[in-house]
């Protein structure tokens, strides 16, 4: 279920109540009861009328320009066009079913599949800072080699636009592999269309993060899929 984050929950409940399919309303209310979604600012309507989501959210791909004036208006039109074309920024990470408490000195191995050398460096640096153990790969051979290394990675960050293999294919193969299928995979991509997000999730991705992103988002997503606090 993809939810427009700009509508308050109460309004969605009203709209869903008018639908012939009661399961939609039921699903929405379950999400609310479970605390996955709430009106920003609480139930008293003090918020800005948008949804606060836990574990996932979407927002426009590019912020509208702050400066008023003709050029801003023209840029805004362009932004709207891109929005229509490209969809949204997605920050999705399925929370692990069970919380995980790392034992003393346990290292979390993170496989980073990213062919942009600068972004790969940034991710490596950031993961090391968070005391993860990064393992880097940039192409098909690198991925194969990295996945053969012991121990198997605890989680994989996967760029889907790679020079010699489609990242979605890598995802599918991992999810079909008897050993690797349990490794959570977080897709990182500039492919921001709804179709691409749904494809990633349908292929078994545990997270979907559209680029560009702040590196903090990565740490949050990795911890979420592993059940770490």
């Amino acid at each position: 279920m993809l939810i427009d984050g700009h509508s308050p929950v109460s309004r969605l409940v009203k709209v869903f109540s008018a639908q012939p399919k009661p399961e939609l309303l039921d699903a929405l209310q379950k999400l609310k009861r479970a605390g996955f979604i709430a009106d920003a600012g609480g139930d008293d309507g003090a918020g800005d009328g948008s949804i606060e989501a836990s574990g996932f959210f979407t927002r426009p791909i590019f912020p509208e320009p702050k400066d008023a004036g003709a050029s801003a208006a023209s840029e805004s039109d362009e932004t709207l066009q891109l929005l229509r074309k490209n969809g949204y920024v997605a920050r999705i990470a399925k929370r692990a079913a069970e919380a995980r408490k790392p034992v003393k000195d346990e290292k979390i191995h993170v496989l980073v599949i990213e062919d942009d050398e600068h972004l790969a460096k940034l991710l490596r640096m950031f993961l090391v800072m968070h005391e993860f153990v990064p393992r880097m790969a940039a192409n098909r051979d690198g991925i194969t080699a990295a996945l053969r290394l012991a121990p198997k990675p605890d989680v994989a960050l996967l760029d889907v636009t790679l020079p010699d293999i489609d990242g979605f294919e890598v995802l599918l193969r991992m999810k079909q592999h008897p050993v690797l299928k349990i490794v959570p995979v977080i897709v990182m991509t500039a492919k921001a269309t709804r179709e691409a997000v749904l494809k990633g999730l349908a292929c078994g991705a545990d997270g979907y993060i559209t680029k560009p992103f702040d590196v903090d988002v990565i740490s949050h997503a990795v911890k979420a899929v592993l059940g770490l606090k």
Partner: protein
Amino acid sequence: MSWQDLGKEFQKLRMEFRGSLPAKLKRLRSLWERIDCEEPDADALEILKRGLHTMAGSGGSFGLPQVSKAAAAAEDALDGLKAGSRPGAKRAAKFRALLDKLEKA
């Protein structure tokens, strides 16, 4: 490494990323020339799209959202262009203008 060091390293990486942009842009222009010519190179389009896609994905992460935005718009402008076919004059002019915009970003 402390968080302060991380901040410095990030700045260094950001400078490195920014420094790499002219060469990347030159490569993108060169790929475009292989497409917008009498005998368009079928492989060049895919490489060009990937280059723009990568730039669109990484710019904002290095604090350069305008690079991401310009690269995404340029990638978008290639939609519908078939590999091995020469772009029309209108598309070519638009794409060149977007590359110029990317250069200024």
